[in-house]
């Protein structure tokens, strides 16, 4: 059973049809890529999956459950986490607190015990700190845990976004152009990190990316969007040789 199914998803903004009857199934523990030219509807798709938009038509099935219209914060708690194309960290919080906030979202202790500092809550807070430290170590930001998020370098901020998303203990992680602005070395590290997340933490990965090298390298399956329609889906090899994809996106030389 797929972790995530998009069934006939359409999204209209006024008269503009940003997505047109898109069907995508993301298998469990896949690394699934979505590519397409700018304005193809990739980020809109992410916004639908995370509950920011309720699709005009179609349904969104996550782990066998229809989550159309479920509030964004509830979807996050159900296990879908994301990063942003334009980085959106809590700039004035420390690196550690950025990750801790994610842990709080899925923690058990209620509102009042957190206000009163009850023992159960203090114990949980300690676990949360350990968990946050572990995630920071995973993405290589442990040394910087006390810095303000805004003082990190660009590539580091991208990694922090990933750590913060992982803090939600998601079963599906959406990465919106994770490699944007990274150099070759950082991209290689990122690919290792993504594989490690899937392998060790058992998280399915869905990513939007323009770097074809990265996409072809780590994705097992790729869907191509163009003007809101899915024009192709398949393995990297199939996509590379698909006539329509080459025409609309990869370019004749690819």
């Amino acid at each position, binding site marked *: 059973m797929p972790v995530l199914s998009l069934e006939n998803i359409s999204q209209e903004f006024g008269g503009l049809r940003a997505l047109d009857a898109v069907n995508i199934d993301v298998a469990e523990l896949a690394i699934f890529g979505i590519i397409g030219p700018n304005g193809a509807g990739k980020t809109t798709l992410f916004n639908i999956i995370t509950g920011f938009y309720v699709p005009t038509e179609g349904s969104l099935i996550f782990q066998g459950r229809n989550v159309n219209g479920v509030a*964004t914060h509830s979807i*996050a708690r159900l296990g879908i986490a994301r990063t942003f194309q334009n980085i959106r960290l809590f700039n004035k*919080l420390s690196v550690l607190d950025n990750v801790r906030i994610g842990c709080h979202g899925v923690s058990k202790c209620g509102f009042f015990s957190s206000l009163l500092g009850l023992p159960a809550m203090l114990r949980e807070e300690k676990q949360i700190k350990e968990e946050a430290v572990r995630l920071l170590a995973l993405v290589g930001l442990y040394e910087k845990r006390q810095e303000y998020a805004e003082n990190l370098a660009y590539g580091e901020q991208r990694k922090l976004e990933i750590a913060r*998303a992982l803090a939600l203990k998601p079963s599906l992680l959406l990465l919106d152009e994770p490699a944007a602005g990274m150099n070759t070395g950082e991209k290689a590290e990122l690919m290792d990190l993504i594989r490690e997340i899937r392998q060790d933490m058992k998280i399915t990965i869905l990513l939007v990316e323009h770097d074809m090298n990265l996409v072809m390298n780590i994705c097992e399956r790729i869907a191509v969007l163009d003007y809101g329609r899915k024009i192709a889906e398949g393995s990297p090899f199939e996509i590379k040789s698909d006539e329509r994809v080459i025409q609309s996106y990869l370019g004749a030389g690819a």
Partner: protein
Amino acid sequence: MFWEQLLNGLTLGSTYALIALGYTMVYGIVQLINFAHGEIYMFGAFAGLFLVSFCGVNIVLALLGAMAFCMLLGMLIERIAYRPLRGKSSRLSALISAIGVSIFLSTLMVLLAETNTRRYPDVVPNHSFHLGSLDFSLMQIIILLFSAVLMVGLQLMVQKTRIGKAMRACSQDLDAAYLMGINVNRVISFTFAVGSALAAAGGVMVAIYYNAVWPYMGTMAGLKAFSAAVLGGIGSIPGAMIGGLSLGVLEIMGVAYLSSSYKDAIAFGILILVLLIRPQGLLGQKISKKV
């Protein structure tokens, strides 16, 4: 003379600060100037009066009761008048809704209590103290101490607790906060509750200090506190505290050394100057828009 005026200024200023905190916290998270905030302060003063006069409880319980009542009132207003508009319509609609709530609340109080000025029975002994040449009253001490306790408590809550972190996260990026599983509506509700409780504490204490409670008392106090919040940098919690205290001191000094008829002109003159010279306020951050 100077020290006594300074003490008077700080007393007045800490009540401004208590009200200003509500403006600034709400603005920090939802970018709304809650124009009904002054009326919540007024309702707090009346709730305290009601508890003291009709229920016969002592002043400490009445103060806490008024704070609890205004917490509920603040959350109710947010739920009914602001939340339905959030995200669906422009920020201007929420602002207009706030003005509507403000008029509704003061008119409602006129219906309930009529326009005449009431006063608290003698709940706090009219004791005065002398320290060298300095004269001050028991009520001044209470206002200064209790405001300080509330402000320190607020700072601890915002910096140390989980809900405080969630509030700061929401004020920095609401959408990202949603995606971190934060129940943003609950955080906003909580923010209104805390801000309203602080305003109620201010309302009760000011009503006792000046010996006056009336349905329109929130209008001027609200505008002054709003100026204080802008002076400190709207959206900044320490800013509201500093803004409130400075405004109180400046106002009292103006009255003492210039003329009492300039009292209100000073507050709003400062508001205009801040907006002209340093629109981000004392502690606010300058946001340069990306183009």
